[in-house]
């Protein structure tokens, strides 16, 4: 166990954490924030994507104890985020989700893409999405949603 404190979705956490616990397992099993999904546990599917200090990371490949002093945001922390809610609406309108399992990771990745590319084209979005597995949609709706959300957010 390692004493760890960090800011999670705007709230200060200070706990003894099992050193081997991944950030994903910690937020899911200890904090019951189950919007972060585990699709592979080896960094290849992107379902568990969360933000640490403002950049998306795979929470299955981050030890919770390594987040000490950092700022962590999970999908639950984005519910009032204006940009994210624009992305959400575009996801819905473009049918960018079916079973919903990849969706939280997709949304966090989408927001990062839109931050780093003002007006990404299809090829850029697809390249940035590589490593985010969606088994249901065939990605077309996701690409379209990110493209239109970027226009809306970045003008």
């Amino acid at each position, binding site marked *: 166990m*390692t004493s760890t404190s960090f800011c999670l979705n705007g709230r200060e956490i200070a706990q003894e954490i*099992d*050193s*081997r616990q*991944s950030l994903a*397992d910690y937020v899911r099993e200890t904090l019951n924030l189950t919007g972060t999904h585990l699709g592979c*546990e*080896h*960094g290849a599917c*992107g379902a568990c*994507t969360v933000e640490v200090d403002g*950049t*998306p*990371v*795979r929470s*299955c*490949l*981050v*030890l919770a*104890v*390594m987040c*000490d002093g950092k700022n962590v945001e999970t999908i639950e922390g984005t519910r009032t985020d204006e940009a994210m809610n624009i992305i959400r609406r575009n996801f819905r309108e473009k049918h960018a989700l079916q079973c919903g399992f990849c969706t939280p990771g997709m949304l966090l*990745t989408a927001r*990062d893409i839109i931050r780093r590319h003002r007006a990404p084209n299809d090829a850029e979005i697809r*390249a*940035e999405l*590589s*490593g*985010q597995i969606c088994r249901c949609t065939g990605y077309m709706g996701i690409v379209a949603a990110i493209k239109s959300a970027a226009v809306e957010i970045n003008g």
Partner: protein
Amino acid sequence: MKASAFQYVRPENLTEAIELLSGDPDGGAMAISGGQSLLVLMGLRFAMANTLVDISRLPELHRVSESADRVFLGAATTHAMIEDRKVPDPSSGLMPRVASKIAYRSVRNLGTIGGSMALADSAADWPACLIALDADIVIMGAHGERREKAEDFVRGPYETALLPAELVVGIDIPHRRTARWGTNKVARKSGAFADSLAVFVDSSNDGPARLALTGTASHARLLPRTSTYAHENRILDNADLRATILADLEDVDPLADAYRQRCHVATAMRAIAEARL
């Protein structure tokens, strides 16, 4: 797929880190930085440690400096920092390009150049790139700092020149401001490990031509004959070039079957062609 139990320690400085790594004579202490490969191996229980020494915040590994003829990138420099040109680029765009093709963005946000070299996966991108750039790997151990040429540092699959309780502290790369370069990769899909990856840095007034290849049965290697041939000939004869690459392959990937040979020849020729477009 959960790692077995371990102790976690986060030393304040490099000396302390090396002491911690030296303190476990059975090698039960391992360093973790980005963790993007190590935690996969630990989750699968292919790798285990009694103690994980978190070196991700050591100031010594975050040092970045640039001189007239060289760039030093601390080992903790992430692929994303290189991709985004947030650190000096000695390679006129080669390193950002190579970085951008490593795995996926959220992996690149944490994965580090030092960690990639220290792990030395036989299909990883940085060893080939840094061999082509003739970089030095800067190593720190209990007995002080030493350097290895990148091509001497990687020695086999997951095998390097690192001695127990030594750490990669950074990469020292000569400037190739005027060199043109090319790189070509064959992988089963985007982000997958390379079946063949060639990185070519052409001759220029700041250095000779160097072609490095990975995706071999063993580890990234310089193709010496091909490098010399390209250095000495501006106009390349495709048949000669091909024969030269094949001659190099007999040394660097003797077990390659016909398909892997085709891939190696293709990536090597295309990397050179891209540089000379």
